[in-house]
């Protein structure tokens, strides 16, 4: 199985929060090889039960979110420019003069407007999303024919290889997590496990972990492993605040997580010589684990995060070895429970 190829397909497909169905169909198709998978048109979530599901075995949920950050059309001006609002925490510092795709009745190319220097004396401030327009090169009348309010807008950027086994793309947050889960299932193919493995590729994480909340309720798991991305050190940053690219999965320890599961993960990583890092958080985790931990009567949860640079930009960077080691850790974990 070629992780880069899977990751390339997953990242190139549009799935801004609340509009994930296209990527859900793709992901369900990939998961179908390992069990029973379905894409839910209503919620955008992908539900999966691994082959060999038996009624009385405990259920381990593997979660990664399927949505990506983007924008949403809120208004069309008389001269055909689009106003937008953020859909997830897009890094506004990348916006000016970006090429975007408007996912309207047909896909349209647009450019984020940028005020030229003769009118803009101060380039030290990042723009607010509400201050930009999308230039789609159409009259107001044509724009209204092709674009509806509520259409999603995203910055496309296909997967490209960097040096050092690293890759860059949009939406590596959290398609990398999805790829790690798929790769873990691939490693365990045809193996008998003591647990049922459920996968949830959850929608709407970037706007408040909503897909995870309803998806995990439906699955009703006994424990959960949440696979997301977390901060890798960039130039000039302190190692106290970040992981390292290439350092292996970042195992979460936090008051909101199951300490037992965190310790299991650390032990399994050590026993199997899987490189890992710890990520200690003082309260909640900012991931789906926050929502999944408190569904129904409560679910023990742990985070396993893939280190990533430049989060929430179209130029996110991860190292393939971290995805592989994350998959390895998840597979070993599932074999040990």
């Amino acid at each position, binding site marked *: 199985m070629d992780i880069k190829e899977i990751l390339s397909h997953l990242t190139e497909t549009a799935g801004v929060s609340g509009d994930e169905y296209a990527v859900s169909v793709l992901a369900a198709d990939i998961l179908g090889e390992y069990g029973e998978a379905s894409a839910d048109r209503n919620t955008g979530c992908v539900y999966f039960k691994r082959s060999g599901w038996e009624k009385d075995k405990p259920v381990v949920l593997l979660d990664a979110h399927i949505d990506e950050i983007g924008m949403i059309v809120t208004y069309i001006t008389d001269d055909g420019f689009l106003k937008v609002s953020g859909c997830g925490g897009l890094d506004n510092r990348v*916006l000016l003069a970006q090429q975007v795709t408007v996912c309207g009745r047909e896909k349209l190319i647009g450019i984020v407007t940028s005020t030229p220097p*003769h009118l803009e004396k101060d380039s030290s401030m*990042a723009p607010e999303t509400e201050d930009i327009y999308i230039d789609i090169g159409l009259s107001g009348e044509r724009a209204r024919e092709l674009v509806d309010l509520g259409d999603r807008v995203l910055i496309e950027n296909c997967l490209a290889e960097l040096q050092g086994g690293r890759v860059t793309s949009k939406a590596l947050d959290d398609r990398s997590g999805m790829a790690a889960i798929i790769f873990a299932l691939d490693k365990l193919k045809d193996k008998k496990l003591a647990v049922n493995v459920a996968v949830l590729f959850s929608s709407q994480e970037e706007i408040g972990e909503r897909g995870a909340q309803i998806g995990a309720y439906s699955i009703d798991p006994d424990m959960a492993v949440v696979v997301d991305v977390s901060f890798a050190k960039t*130039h000039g940053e302190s190692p106290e605040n970040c992981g390292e690219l*290439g350092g292996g999965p970042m195992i979460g320890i936090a008051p909101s997580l199951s300490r037992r599961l965190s310790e299991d993960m650390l032990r399994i990583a050590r026993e199997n010589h899987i490189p890992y890092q710890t990520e200690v958080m003082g309260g909640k985790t900012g991931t789906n684990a926050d929502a999944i931990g408190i569904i129904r009567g409560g679910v023990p949860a742990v985070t396993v995060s893939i280190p990533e640079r430049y989060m929430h930009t179209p130029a996110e*960077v991860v190292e393939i070895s971290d995805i592989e080691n994350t998959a390895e850790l998840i597979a070993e974990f599932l074999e040990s429970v």
Partner: protein
Amino acid sequence: MINELKDLCLLDGISGDEGQVREYIISRIKDKAEIKVDALGNVIAFVKGKNRSKNRVMISAHMDEVGMIVTYINEDGTLKLSPVGGIDPRVVFGRRVTVGKNNAVGVIGGTAVHNLSAEDRKKSVPFDKMTADIGCKSREDAQKLVSPGDSVRFVSDFVSFGDGYVKCKAIDDRVGCAVMLRLIDEGLEYDAYFTFVVQEEIGLRGAKCAAYTVDPDYALVIEATTAADIPEVSGDSKVCVLGGGPVISFMDRHTVYDKELYALAFETAKGNGIPCQTKTRVAGGNDAGAIHVSRGGVRTCAVSLPCRYLHSPSCVIRESDLENAYILTRFLLDRTCNR
């Protein structure tokens, strides 16, 4: 012409590193012109027309584009940058780039927005806080691929969108190069000097030397100029508009243009039914600034294409303006030669 513009825009030619563009242009016109490459790398081409020109006329466009240059390789393998030409740092952060002779793919990054203070999140990222990240894990690794002084260029596709618009990097000033190549292809009425010059974006340097060498009576500069015809900008602040035809300036930050040529351009446009506009602000500047004060002075006119988001990886022009700029330039060149 639009296909040639695409080929030209996708070539990389940061100021001082215009080799790819120069080679392309030479290969295109080598059978149609007497070509000289000067000490700075300007291409100076004498093109024969059907008739001898009454005046020595120089028509000029610049080959270089804005970008960045590697100034230092950090210990962690990331690269420090300096802008080459006037770039708003806000159009650089988060972009994909290629670096150096080996075309190493990289991204321009910095601290993740989540890890900044509330105050810093609102600010743009200045050049000294950005790095190019080509994936290398150490200085030693990076040194195998890149060196200080390497060019850093935007990766930006050439795309058509909307109602006859195109977007790419480097449209400033490959549009000028495209117009001039087509003029040569279609044959001239009068002999003329075609100069494809270097280092415009860092101070009109190539044009100064090319104009000295050619020693023209008249000069036409073919350029791209800022259009601000976007929402919340009105009246004179728009400067010029896409779809309004080529732009003839009376004055910009470097040049007061020759009054007779200015009038001649409008008269020529009107007489031939070509849409044409002027700039409603004294803004911007181009190689005319160096050419019109060359030696004892050169009578100079600029024909510019209105361009949104100039000096970004997403320059936008309208195809109809390109066509009209070509037609106007063709007439204007003939009339200037025959004055």
